[in-house]
């Protein structure tokens, strides 16, 4: 069962009045939210609303047009190179496709961040890489190349790489896209496990409703039309709140209704 982080946990990420866009095009504006340490926060919304772009701004891959992204008290986009490096050292990223380096084995993929940021011996690094792969269910696949394993395994290896440095914050871009329901469920369990044991904070881009209701402490719903956050908070509470039912949870409930409709259609076709 989800153990929601205590309200007393310190705020780890604060985003204040962020505006994001490409060239003269404004993709999102007035984005403000806070994420506490140990929270599992989902960024969700319709296709093309800028979920992945927002994640890129948080990860430091794309600069915002305006606004602040604070890690603790440090403004990432105003910090000097060393401070940024320190923040990046404390974050792990799982890209949508896994983004494993194809010329390296899985163990080498996981080992690279450790070689880059620590002075550990080769032996220690190899042990750690094996451990991370075992934690994500890939024990014994150390010497495989990414092209030799399945899509789901690539994703798990990507997560092992993201975990390499025991980061405080993990960014996951559509972690369960393309996974079967069982693998997707396992991934949710793993995320919960890592949050509860390693006290990691998760920022996840996804529109998997099952995952959202199963593990999210907080959702941030971005709206295509207004180009801003339309609702944020505990998804279970938002779903019951009649005030928000018209906007964000319209998406959630309609998503659920859509599924029910699909199911009934299937049954009809079946009969």
């Amino acid at each position, binding site marked *: 069962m989800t153990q929601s982080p205590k309200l007393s946990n310190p705020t780890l990420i604060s985003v204040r009045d962020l505006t994001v866009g490409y060239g003269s095009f404004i993709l999102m504006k007035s984005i403000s939210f806070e994420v506490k340490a140990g929270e599992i926060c989902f960024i969700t919304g319709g296709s093309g609303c800028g979920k992945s772009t927002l994640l890129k701004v948080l990860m430091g891959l794309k600069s915002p047009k305006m606004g602040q992204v604070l890690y603790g008290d440090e403004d990432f986009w105003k910090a000097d190179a060393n401070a940024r490096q320190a923040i990046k050292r404390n974050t792990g990223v799982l890209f949508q496709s896994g983004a494993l380096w194809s010329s390296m084995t899985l163990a080498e993929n996981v080992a690279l961040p450790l070689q880059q940021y620590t002075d550990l011996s080769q032996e220690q690094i190899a042990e750690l890489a094996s451990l991370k792969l075992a934690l994500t269910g890939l024990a014994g696949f150390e*010497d495989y190349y990414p092209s030799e394993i399945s899509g789901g395994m690539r994703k798990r290896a990507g997560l092992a790489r993201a975990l390499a440095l025991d980061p405080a914050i993990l960014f996951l871009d559509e972690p369960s896209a393309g996974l079967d329901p069982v693998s997707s469920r396992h991934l949710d369990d793993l995320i919960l496990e890592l949050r509860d044991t390693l006290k990691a904070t998760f920022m996840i881009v996804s529109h998997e409703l099952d995952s959202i209701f199963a593990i999210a402490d907080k959702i941030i719903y971005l709206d295509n039309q207004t180009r801003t956050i339309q609702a944020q908070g505990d998804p279970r509470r938002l779903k019951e709140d009649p005030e928000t039912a018209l906007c964000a949870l319209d998406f959630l409930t309609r998503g659920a209704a859509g599924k029910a409709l699909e199911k009934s259609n299937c049954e009809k076709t079946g009969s």
Partner: protein
Amino acid sequence: MISDMRIHVDSERGCLNITVGGTWRLSPERPEEIQRALQLVNEPQITGVLIKEDGLSTWDSSLLVFLVQIVRSARERKIALDLQLSEGLNRLIALAFEVKSQQGSQRERHLPGFLEGIGEKVLSVFPRLTDFLEFLGDVVSALSRFVLGRATMRKQDFLSALHECSIQALPIVAVTNLLFGLILAFVGAVQLTQFGVQIYVAGLVGIGMLRVMGAVMVGIVMSGRVGASYAALLGTMQVNEEIDALTTLGISPVEFLILPRILALVLMVPLLTIYADLMGIFGGYLVGTIMLDIPPVQYLNATMSMVKFSHGLIGLVYATMFGFVIALAGCYQGLRCGRSAQAVGQATTTAVVHSIVGIIVMTAIITIICNVLGI
């Protein structure tokens, strides 16, 4: 944060007691007790392991990796194991052993010996050769379908392939061939001036460029420019499953993707060769008139009288064959590319190497045939 790993290891009456505490952070320096514990757990007199924590504040993977190693050894030896640890640690240890290493997934790194390596190479020649012949067969059948007007080929693809290997290639073909004409004339001039027959520079450059060198130069430039780009493009399409998408639709990738590229190169390399020949002759003309003081009209007359129409035709035969070889090498490597970024790089390199080797081999073959036929 400073690492303050505390660990106490002792063994009494066959039981290994490990107590961990303090702050565990990834660090190159590890307490010697860790190594001792890892050795002791494998000693035959140890029949049980007890791990407990005492004053453990914060920890990371450094503690976890140590505990997992101890637990693994204890499990392998099937000895009693008692973990008196916090819930979080217990759960992570359980997670590390949850999915068992799949049978057969472990790999042994095997480096073939010298003779084994040669054997493997020799054995791989035949399958590769049959694979290439199969591809060549597909190309020939696609060409015949094209002649019959039944090929699935988009006009736009053909036009864009034409564009890529024609107008876009003009500047580089001009520069390389102009300079090559200059070099050829310079080298000839040094020798011919000694006999006072420097006018023959016109014939040397004219015949040399028209008969073979113009085509070879265009071939080499095009294999680097276009052959490599074909391999990279088709290789990336292979990685993105675009080629699979065509196949599942019942569209032949050879007809749809490769035919327009082969046709474009076979058509354009001869035309570029004519242009290259003119540029090379112009290079020779510059050396002849400026350096050797041959009057321009005399140089041109000498070129016209020494060069025969058949020289130009033979050059075009070379060029047509080169166009085919470059397109074939680039497309074959692209289509047979593996599904990774590294494989695309390899396919591109191999395409260029194969097309240049192919050009040289083809030159030798046609030259010998011309020699035998006396043309």
